[in-house]
């Protein structure tokens, strides 16, 4: 009745009588393969429903999978990657391709509305990522924060050039909030596409010290007047309540240590 999922051409001698495994033995074999893949249990939160790959984070990795991996895994990416304009929803830079090429594990993290006591929201946005599932023994090659900028603006008066800056939220000894500069990039209204900020350093801190994970603070200023802070939405940056395929997310690239866990 049930399909096993393993199909062989029965290359063995036909005259030899093979024992048919029991249902229990079959389940044990399946479990052993899942263990090898590092998937011993069904992931939490799926509730038995097939996963939806509509959100930006899974969509990004599916894009990488379809465009750069799959057939001929040992090939050099630079020879297999599709021409520019045919790379799906996400534009991958040369730096991205190098990171993908070097990585054994690539993880995406959706932004959460995670409350942290003592962190006051100003005009900027706070983004928090659950990095507790980062596999132990993996070294971080790099991590980037991806933000989608839409050309549609509610307030047409706010046209111009802007600086988008990411800060790591710290807690000082006296309990005051402190922001540590992480990365920044220039943009202008009317631009459409993904903005990428290097967040390798904060990820390294959060993995080493999960208690210190208070997320990132995203700040937008006009390029000419750095004092006046604006809301990211004002320049078209899509937030956590925007379209699911344009929500902010973080992606991290890891290299395996090569040490296998005993099973």
């Amino acid at each position, binding site marked *: 009745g049930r*399909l*096993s*999922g*393993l*199909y*062989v*051409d029965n*290359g*063995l*001698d036909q005259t030899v009588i093979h024992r048919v495994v029991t249902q229990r033995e079959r389940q044990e074999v*399946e479990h052993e*393969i*899942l263990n*090898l*893949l*590092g*998937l011993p249990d*069904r*992931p*939490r*939160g*799926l509730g*038995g*429903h*097939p*996963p939806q*790959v509509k*959100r930006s*984070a*899974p969509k990004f*990795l*599916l894009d*990488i*999978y*379809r465009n750069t*991996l*799959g057939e001929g*895994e*040992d090939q050099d990416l630079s020879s297999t990657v599709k021409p520019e304009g045919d790379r799906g929803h996400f534009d991958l830079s040369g730096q991205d391709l190098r990171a993908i090429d070097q*990585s*054994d*594990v*690539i*993880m*995406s*993290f*959706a932004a*959460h509305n995670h409350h942290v006591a003592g962190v006051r929201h100003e005009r900027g946005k706070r983004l928090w990522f*659950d990095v507790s*599932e980062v596999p132990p023994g993996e070294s971080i090659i790099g991590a980037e924060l991806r933000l989608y900028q839409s050309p549609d603006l509610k307030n047409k008066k706010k046209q111009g050039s802007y600086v988008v800056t990411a800060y790591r939220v710290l807690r000082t000894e006296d309990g005051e909030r402190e922001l540590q500069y992480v990365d920044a990039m220039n943009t202008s209204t009317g631009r459409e596409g993904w903005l990428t900020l290097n967040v390798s350093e904060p990820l390294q801190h959060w993995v080493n010290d999960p208690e210190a994970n208070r997320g990132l603070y995203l700040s937008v200023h006009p390029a000419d007047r750095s004092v006046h802070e604006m809301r990211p939405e004002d320049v078209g940056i899509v937030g956590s309540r925007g379209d699911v395929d344009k929500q902010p997310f973080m992606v991290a690239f890891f290299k395996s240590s090569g040490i296998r866990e005993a099973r």
Partner: protein
Amino acid sequence: VRRKRDARRRKKSDTSSVDYRSNPYTDPSIQSNARTCKIQTLYVNFRDLKWQDWIIAPDGYDAYYCSGECNFPLNAHMNATNHAIVQTLVHLVTPGKVPKPCCAPTKLSAISVLYFLDDNNVILKKYKNMVVKSCGCH
């Protein structure tokens, strides 16, 4: 004179222990019966295993496996190691003591699997040495 005499004795003794029935040159049935070591098809279907709940891609993959006999003479198609050739010869001399070399992968490649860690986070992981590219006698 003594060395030559001992060598003659050794040669006589070694020759007498060879089982001509297991020699492929004297027993053609060995060659015709055995299936030679080669790559065989094995497809692992994640969808039929009902793992598509969390494995996004691929639906499955061609894993392949190696099967067949490593018989003397080992030809070039088997990618036999030098040691495998020696082991085959020793097996012919003492079949009860030394087994034939094993038919095993000589080259393996990786696959990438994309799966959900939970309902938000997704992982794309490269698994090395998952696909058999070629087989040989070891």
